[in-house]
């Protein structure tokens, strides 16, 4: 029998492909295929289970823009989602930076505090929501006790002016531990000589923070900015569990879910998800282009912005389809 001889490069390629084959299959089936399929569904009136459907072309897309009678909540839900991002992202980043800086200043009990901050991140979302629902109950929880003691009428989850900020606060609290750990590990990697140099130049704690620490963790902060923004734009669980979208908390994911799951409008829900996809793509691209990163070279930065935005968007859309 003739022995097959492969070149070293070919063997390496072959082995490489073999190792990533399960992941490629998974990606193709559960991420790429749903992205393509949902784009097709967005041009139909498919209800999610019938064998038949009508091809509508761009009708669903046009309808999202022109029929506020049937779909009155889509655009307000986009507004709600961006407002939620506005509440959560800056607060998350600033708090993470401050807390990480405090923990990095060699305080006693660093491990204890790290654990405390991280506990909400590893607790199931449903359990966290149940705890908050109890705490915020206007009659029986912590808020109930305040109402009783001071004769107030605080009802945070049942008011349009406070429900969304309350959910945003919960989200910041829940994600703080993760963000702090990431920023803290970036701070630990900053060269100590930079701090010494700053000291030699007469810099105090504040100057060291703004001139050494912040630039040192800028790439990490940018990473958190992007992931927090994407997380915020995908906000769903808390609204679904705690307010069911009432009192101005219908985010766009909740709106799409409701249209898909409760009303079998798979075509329209898919069209809305693609419109959201485009909106987010523009939004994230602007972030890439505007927000300072470690690499500030003009052309390269722009090219990276296109590439990274696209890559992130594919991941985001795959997540949404799931």
């Amino acid at each position: 029998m003739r022995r097959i001889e492969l070149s070293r490069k070919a063997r390496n390629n072959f082995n490489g492909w073999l190792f990533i084959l399960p992941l490629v299959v998974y990606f193709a089936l559960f991420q790429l295929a749903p992205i393509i399929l949902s784009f097709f569904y967005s041009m139909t009136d498919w209800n999610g289970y019938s064998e038949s459907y009508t091809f509508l072309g761009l009708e669903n897309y046009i309808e999202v823009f022109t029929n506020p009678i049937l779909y009155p909540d889509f655009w307000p839900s986009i507004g709600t989602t961006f407002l939620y991002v506005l509440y959560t992202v800056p607060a998350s980043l600033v708090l993470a930076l401050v807390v990480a800086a405090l923990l990095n200043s060699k305080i006693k009990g660093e491990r204890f505090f790290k654990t405390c901050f991280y506990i909400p991140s590893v607790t199931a979302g449903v359990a966290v929501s149940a705890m908050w629902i109890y705490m915020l109950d206007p009659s029986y929880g912590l808020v109930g006790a305040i109402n009783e003691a001071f004769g107030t009428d605080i009802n945070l989850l049942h008011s349009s002016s406070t429900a969304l900020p309350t959910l945003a606060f919960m989200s910041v609290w829940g994600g703080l531990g993760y963000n702090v750990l990431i920023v803290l590990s970036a701070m630990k990697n900053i060269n100590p000589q930079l701090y010494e140099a700053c000291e030699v130049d007469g810099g105090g704690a504040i100057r060291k923070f703004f001139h050494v620490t912040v630039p040192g963790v800028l790439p990490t902060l940018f990473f958190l900015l992007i992931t927090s923004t994407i997380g915020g734009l995908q906000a769903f669980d808390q609204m679904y569990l705690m307010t069911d979208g009432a009192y101005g908390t219908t985010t766009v994911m909740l709106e799409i879910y409701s249209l898909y799951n409760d009303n079998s409008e798979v075509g329209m829900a898919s069209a809305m998800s693609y419109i959201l996809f485009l909106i987010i793509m523009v939004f994230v691209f602007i972030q890439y282009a505007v927000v300072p990163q470690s690499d500030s070279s003009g052309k390269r930065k722009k090219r990276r912005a296109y590439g990274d935005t696209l890559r992130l968007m594919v991941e985001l859309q795959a997540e949404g389809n799931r």
Partner: protein
Amino acid sequence: MSLKKTLPLAAMALAMAGATLAGCTDNGGSGAADQINFMVYQPSDQDDHRALQDLITEFTDETGIQVRLNAVPKDNYDSTFKSAISRGSYKPDLAYMDQPLIATYASDGSICAIDELLAETIDLEAFNETALETNRYEGKLYGLPLNLTASVLFYNRALVSDEEAPETWAEWEAIATPADVALFEGVGSGGYAGWYFQAFIENCGGKLYDESTGQVAFNSDAGKEAAQFLKDIYRNETDDTIRSSSNAFINGDIMFKIGSSYDIDNMRKQNPNLDIGAILMPSKTGEHHYSVMGGENLVIPSCSTRRESAMKLMEFLMEKEHMELLAEFTGNFPSITEYQVTDDPVKQVVVDQFDELLMRPIVPGWMSVNDLYLGQAVTDILDHEEQRDIDEALSWAEEASNMALARQ
């Protein structure tokens, strides 16, 4: 790396890829030739699940037909059902179905008419008439009612005496509320609000849907009066705060609550000291006491290839003791009138309410009208912050509903 070492790796990688793909295969039917798939609501506890399993074993022993149970939590049931009938690995041969969904699934051919499959042993006249009617679409019967319940008005007897319990809206509205107590728990929001609104509009002489025109009819004088009455008994924002608290009625902070038979044991379990009274739904004049109905039907999906075996299981489940057992799981009553017996005076009010039941319009897509438009309009009208005008909200809901129904 030599080919000798590469081959086992290749085999492993292919096996993993194969395993990934294996999860996506569709065996297209019920598996074994003598097996049917039965899709049910997940019983609330292990004991009920075992009892259901025993019931199925009894059926298998009696008929030789194997049954594969697919118990799905009620909240996810409809979406799981849709997936199962379109591309599931175990397509159901018999399935539970919420009453108002029959028209939607019958109109697109997802469930099959059972008139010709129906055995002579089934006496259709024995069923509660309204519950049976929920299974009819365009003159054909698409299922049988398994159980039902009705909404009644519960009251806390520590706050409301039996003599005070109202028969008319005027009597209800005139009841004075003590400080820190709300009059009425409310009709909920979204889909629930749309569902309960039917009882209020029909108790005021109106209706939700006009069959002769094929258009919704809730934006009428009766609809506006019903909405205004609801707004009046919602009273003020202090009531709102009490209402939004967890288990406010159970904890004794609310005088009246709309609920069904399945709420009774639950309320007693959570607060054994709660003394519950119940009355038929009050109406504007006290002449009628209409209320909304809940419950499950049994249907045979069109994808079933073993319809006769499924029909045998359906008939088996319609026997007295089997029907009673299944009704017990959900806290409902059997749908056959003769079996609706209770010695509990509160539950007896629910049984009495069965004489004046309302079913939702048998129109494809009604659930969208109920949840997205009517329910939303009622929610907005009753929201003290939103303060949406009744005329404006009902007009929008009417326009959107008619537009949505025209597409069906």
